């Protein structure tokens, strides 16, 4: 089906273009219920320094990037229809001791998301030497924010596809670290490999109570908090989670800098979660960049930062893509 005839650029939203608020959009901001007593009783909470454990041979970091190429809007039945041209991509970095880290499975996709119904198919937007293929997605009558989230969701789905799709190395000797919470991953993805989600931001407060919260900031690199259980409505969605410090913050930084939260599915059992917690506490600091290497250092780990940079590059030059879409729409686009 052709595009809405009235589809036009939406310049005033341009300050948002290229930006989608980070991972917080994956999580609702209401504090979840947790059970802090699964590993140690709440009164016994203190930083835990794991002994050396037999770790996996390899770490596979999976991450994605997304971008609003251009915001658009149309008028349908006298009502505005929001939409956007978005590009997103995902890939993995395999790190093994003594072997150069390598990127793999990178894929870039593009979508035209419309807050309308009935539009589908593909658009071919000529852009210099290439043609950009946008999948038209109709998400029904939605808010502007939800249109942006749709791109975010598609990116997380692409990540999930990567982890679960069998294109990346798996097995017991690979620990898969997914950037962001595990919300989007199908649970069976955790059957073929050990999977943890790594959350860099601390928008949600999981742990209430002075002793529990203090335990987080008291962590030293290589230490973790005890494991707590994140309770959800459905039993199968429950996750074990823990905090790890990947780097010590400099004195002028908030003590939460250098802290990341990790999670894995509860159905794997506490013993398995404990092993993953110990491994991540011991190994992740090795991947933390020093301050100044990256704006999001130290929590933005080397492989993830490098992968994101590469993926963002693969999305194509933003100005160039945008200009291509502009001229596409100017020439009549799909309506022609």
């Amino acid at each position, binding site marked *: 089906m052709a595009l809405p005839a009235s589809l036009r650029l939406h310049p005033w939203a341009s300050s948002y273009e290229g930006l989608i608020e980070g991972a917080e959009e994956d999580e609702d901001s209401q504090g979840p219920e947790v059970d802090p007593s699964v590993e140690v009783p709440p009164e016994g909470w203190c930083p835990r320094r794991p002994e050396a454990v037999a770790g996996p041979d390899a770490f596979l970091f999976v991450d994605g990037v997304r971008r609003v190429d251009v915001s658009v809007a149309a008028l349908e039945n006298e009502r505005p229809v929001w939409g956007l041209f978005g590009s997103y991509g995902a890939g993995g970095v395999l790190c093994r*001791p003594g*072997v150069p*880290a390598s990127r793999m499975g990178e894929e870039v996709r593009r979508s035209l998301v419309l807050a309308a119904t009935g539009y589908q198919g593909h658009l071919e937007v000529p852009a210099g030497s290439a043609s950009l293929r946008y999948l038209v997605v109709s998400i029904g009558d939605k808010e502007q924010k939800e249109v942006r989230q749709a791109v975010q969701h598609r990116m997380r789905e692409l990540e999930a596809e990567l982890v679960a799709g069998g294109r990346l190395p798996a097995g017991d000797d690979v620990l898969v670290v997914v950037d962001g919470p595990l919300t989007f991953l199908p649970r069976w993805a955790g059957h073929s490999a050990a999977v943890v989600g790594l959350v860099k931001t601390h928008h949600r407060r999981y742990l209430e109570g002075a002793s529990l919260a203090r335990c987080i900031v008291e962590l030293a690199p290589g230490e973790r908090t005890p494991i707590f259980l994140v309770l959800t409505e459905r039993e199968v969605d429950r996750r074990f989670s823990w905090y790890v410090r990947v780097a010590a913050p400099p004195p002028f930084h908030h003590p939460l800098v250098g802290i990341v939260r990790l999670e894995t599915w509860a159905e794997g059992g506490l013993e398995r979660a404990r092993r993953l917690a110990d491994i991540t506490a011991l190994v992740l600091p090795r991947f933390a960049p020093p301050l100044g*290497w990256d704006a999001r250092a130290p929590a933005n780990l080397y492989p993830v930062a*490098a992968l994101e940079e*590469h993926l963002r590059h693969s999305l194509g030059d933003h100005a160039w893509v945008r200009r291509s879409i502009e001229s596409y729409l100017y020439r009549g686009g799909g309506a022609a």
Partner: protein
Amino acid sequence: MSEVGRVLGTDDARPLDFWVAVAEGHYLQLDDVVLVETPLPDGNRVTIYGVVDQVRARYEGARFDSDVFRAAAGVLPVGIVCAAHVAVTRVEPEIFVPPLPGQPVCRAEGIQREEALYFDRMDHRFPAGLGRDGQVVWGNLEFLDGTRGGHINIAGVSGVATKTSYALFLLYGLFHHPQAAERTRHARAVIFNVKGEDLLFLDKPNARLDDEQRRRYECLGLPAGPFRDVALWAPPVRHGFGELVPSTVSRQQGVTPYAWSLREFCQRRLLSFLFADGDGEHSQLPLAIGAAERYLQQETEGQPASQSWVMLGGRRVTDFQDLVDFLQDHRDEVFGAARVSTGTVDALLRRLQGSVDAVGHLVRGDLSPDQQERHRIEVRARQLNVIDIHALHDRAKRFVVGVVLRQLLQEKDEQGTREPLLFVVLDELNKYAPREGWSPIKEVVLDIAERGRSLGVILIGAQQTASEVERRVVTNASFRVTGRLDTAEAERSEYGFLGPSGRARASILKPGSMFLHQPELPVPLLVQFPFPAWATRPEEVATEDPWSRVRG
């Protein structure tokens, strides 16, 4: 065509230079010859040929220098990319557009390599060495034999630049390669032996030539052997009696002593070549020299050619000492007309007196008519003439070089035709044709540089530093060659043809490698030449198996 990469678009591509991203699993090194085709909007294609003059490799995805350690530790994924810079040599057809980014770049092989380096356009050519790819690098003979240009200039640090070896290699190729020999069959060459007795064994095979070097000669299409037609000339022993004996130590057999008769000295006005050190302190000295030369010429006019001594003022002068004494005794008569100051005449006589030791055995009055004939340097008989001057006093060296060069030029002048060609190899040009000052030799060398092309006298000149040689001598050379150069010297404008990377490489060139610049090619080519197939010292002379003749 084997594709090795593509024109990259992150650095500007220009009609005369561009960068190539080297594809994985391939490599490009310095001096590789490549080509790229680029489409024009009208559907035609332009082929751009070039030579790699810079290669680089870097990490992609690394932000800091220290990222190399993170990459090594396996925590930071990076890519490695190699790129090569190409200096364009030729564009066919001549539409000067840049190669478009993304166009595949191929290694130029076979006929394409010939095209890239203009070898296909050379109707007459000579081997100038082997490229780094082991294939022949040709020189255009038309730019050497005077048709369109002439002369070769070789620069480089003594000892490591192998200037003389390369000059000999060029001569060897010119005389022995079937393609060049066709044009140089009757050509002659003169080379002055200035260092040791190195060049006295050019007609002997080199015992140290191994199979690898023989193979290189084979690649060049040359026989691996000594020069075939060589005459060796050396100064006679001092204070000898009767027959002249060559003063060479390591070899006597086949070496002809050379000398001039006093009569020739006077008649051909050779006196000025004794003052060839370009000394300008006495501005009147040339006047006095001219007066003495004129006097000696006039006085000996009509004296029989069979006698080597001269009658001066009724006195029989039989050796050089006599001649100097005569001038001393008759100074008023000789210099009176020239109105030069007493001081100048004194200076001239003092110098002459000082030359007696240096050239007394070269300018003689005791030669029989037959000896005069035999000991006169005559280059027309043999293809390659080695004139040994290494053991002579500096003043005598200049005398011999100056006299021989002028004699050769005069002969060619009289002959009036370019063919047969005469190649003159002259090292230490900075001594014979310095940038500053004047000397009779400089005049002759300049004359060769400027008129030699039409006379068929081709100068293969060499020097340590081209910046110290008369500019016109260097700029008249169609072929410019450099071996190892001093770093500071390489920065001088005389070596502009090397380009920035060539200058840097010139300071690390190994013996046996030279940069060759020829008129048709805008970039210098690195050439290598094989180990001499002729002996360069007595130990290298291949001893003949005494039984071979019996068996044969």
